[in-house]
């Protein structure tokens, strides 16, 4: 069998093309004009900012509309009251695990499997996930993402990545698990390692964003800003210390296309339902485990042991031990749990930041393991450093501002 070399192959293609293809006069269309406007820096950057801002506004108003406008009432005024009434044995441990604190007046504080578990999963996370995936799908299907990649390439080069790393980054704002898999489109091991590590540490997932909006609506902006700075700072450091190369970006910028309702609907359904298949069992299981750990006194014991670290170094109450254990299973659950702990506004910010950066959730962890255990160990080492330094730094900032 004859094998051709690269040039011979192209010569043959040229010959074939001459005989079979005619390129007619190409007319510039409105679509092309918009395509160019959104990729040129002077017009493209303001448009990108507007698009991302629009993304955020839609996300928070959509999720807020359903959570605050509907689910909070449903769960606090009906579901919780009803459960508290019909569930037998207020003093029993079964009641504690399933309904939670008998004196609770809302589903955040109760922390039972049937109360907080369902409320977090359905009342808070579901609307957030639906809102996120709706916009993500529009961005994907229209063909905007490659343009965003071109616009952000210069910045991402500073942290050892190139523009295309925006794809895993944006995917991970929905869920870190598919985002870790999406790092496969990056060419070098160095790039993949940096991307996987900083997204697992710094990027909050959709579920976490949804719950943060409920628990810390006023200070959420700061938390996100702090995480985003961490993404850049530690990306910059990793780029300096990890050997290897960052290749240049080389991507097709496809023409814009109108997303079809059918494909958007189908993707939304697929992603939401598969998210729930994974998330719901973990949220419920997480509630059970955490409640059992509370009942057995394990969390109080952990809190005592770790209190010098928590209080002295991170400046958060020692009760934070409970949510941090829950955070390994589900970060949304952990943030919900924080809302029931007595603390100042600044301690709350620190605690939410800690929950975010301290460990990837178990599903992400499993996915990272699939991509390679050496990388995973490396990521964990980076993570330990980041938590200690970047978590401690926030405490230092509060001390310097005189609020801790």
């Amino acid at each position, binding site marked *: 069998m004859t094998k051709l070399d690269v040039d011979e192959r192209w010569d043959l293609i040229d*010959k074939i093309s001459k*005989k079979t293809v005619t390129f*007619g006069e190409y007319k510039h269309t409105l679509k092309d004009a918009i395509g160019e406007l959104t990729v040129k820096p002077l017009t493209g950057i303001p448009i990108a900012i507007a698009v991302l801002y629009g993304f955020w506004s839609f996300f928070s108003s959509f999720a807020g509309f359903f959570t605050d406008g509907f689910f909070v009432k449903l769960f606090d005024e009906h579901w919780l009251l009803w459960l508290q009434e019909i569930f037998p044995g207020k003093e029993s441990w079964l009641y504690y695990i399933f309904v939670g604190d008998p004196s609770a007046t809302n589903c955040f504080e109760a922390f039972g499997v049937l109360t907080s578990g369902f409320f977090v999963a359905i009342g808070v996370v579901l609307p957030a996930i639906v809102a996120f995936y709706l916009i993500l799908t529009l961005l994907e299907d229209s063909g905007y993402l490659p343009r965003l990649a071109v616009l952000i390439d210069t910045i991402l080069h500073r942290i050892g990545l190139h523009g295309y790393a925006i794809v895993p980054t944006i995917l991970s704002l929905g869920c870190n698990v598919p985002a870790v898999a999406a790092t496969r*489109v990056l060419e070098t091991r160095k790039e993949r390692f940096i991307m996987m590590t900083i997204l697992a540490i710094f990027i909050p997932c959709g579920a976490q964003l949804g719950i943060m909006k409920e628990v810390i609506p006023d200070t959420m902006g700061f938390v996100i800003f702090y995480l985003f700075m961490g993404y850049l700072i530690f990306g910059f450091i990793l780029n300096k210390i990890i050997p290897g190369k960052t290749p240049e970006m080389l991507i097709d910028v*496809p023409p814009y296309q109108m997303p079809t309702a059918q494909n958007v609907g189908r993707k939304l359904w697929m992603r939401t339902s598969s998210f729930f298949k994974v998330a719901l069992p973990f949220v419920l299981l997480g509630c059970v485990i955490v409640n059992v750990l509370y009942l057995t006194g394990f969390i109080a014991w952990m809190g005592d042991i770790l209190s010098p670290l928590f209080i002295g170094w991170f400046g958060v109450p020692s009760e934070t031990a409970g949510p941090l254990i829950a955070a390994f299973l589900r970060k949304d659950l952990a943030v919900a749990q924080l809302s029931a702990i007595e603390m100042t506004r600044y301690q709350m910010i620190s605690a939410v930041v800690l929950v975010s950066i301290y460990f990837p959730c178990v599903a992400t962890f499993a996915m990272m393991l699939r991509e390679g255990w050496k990388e995973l160990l490396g990521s964990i080492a980076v993570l330990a450093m980041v938590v200690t330094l970047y978590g401690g730094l926030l405490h230092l900032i509060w001390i310097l501002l005189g609020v801790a």
Partner: protein
Amino acid sequence: MKILLMGHPNVGKSVLFNRLTGANVIESNYPGTTIDYTKGYMRVGGEEVEVIDVPGTFSLDPKDKAEEVAVKMLHESRDATVICVIDASKIERGLYLVLEIVEEGYSVAIALNMWDVAEDKNIKIDVVNLERILGVPVVSTTAISGEGIKELVSRSRGTAPVEVDDIFERVED
């Protein structure tokens, strides 16, 4: 029978795969959507046919892990019929991958997908002549509307490997 869908990123392989098998893999308008392989099945005249969707690749010389998946799957499927999915509006670069696969001795059929886009861009392709020169079935398709898919399936049956030397001869005629 086994069919493997190969082609550059973002040419419509996953759309085609979903159409053929009724599966629900993710399709999006950016290169690099699919990062792992998916197997599905379809019935053709009473026969169960396995169809595999893989990540897009530019050549058989993979440059990232996603492309590795595609090339590995190709090499593990020596007996498969390879449907090369080409973006008809970028036909020349698509043919590069086709030649690479033909040279390795696979039975190939070509889907000239995004036919609607090529028409909009005023690109005219002489499908009959292309098929004669290459010696493999060439079918124009528009995967999103389903046009040409039936023909693609029926034409993909009974393809046989071709020699590059013969292609050289036929292109001179």
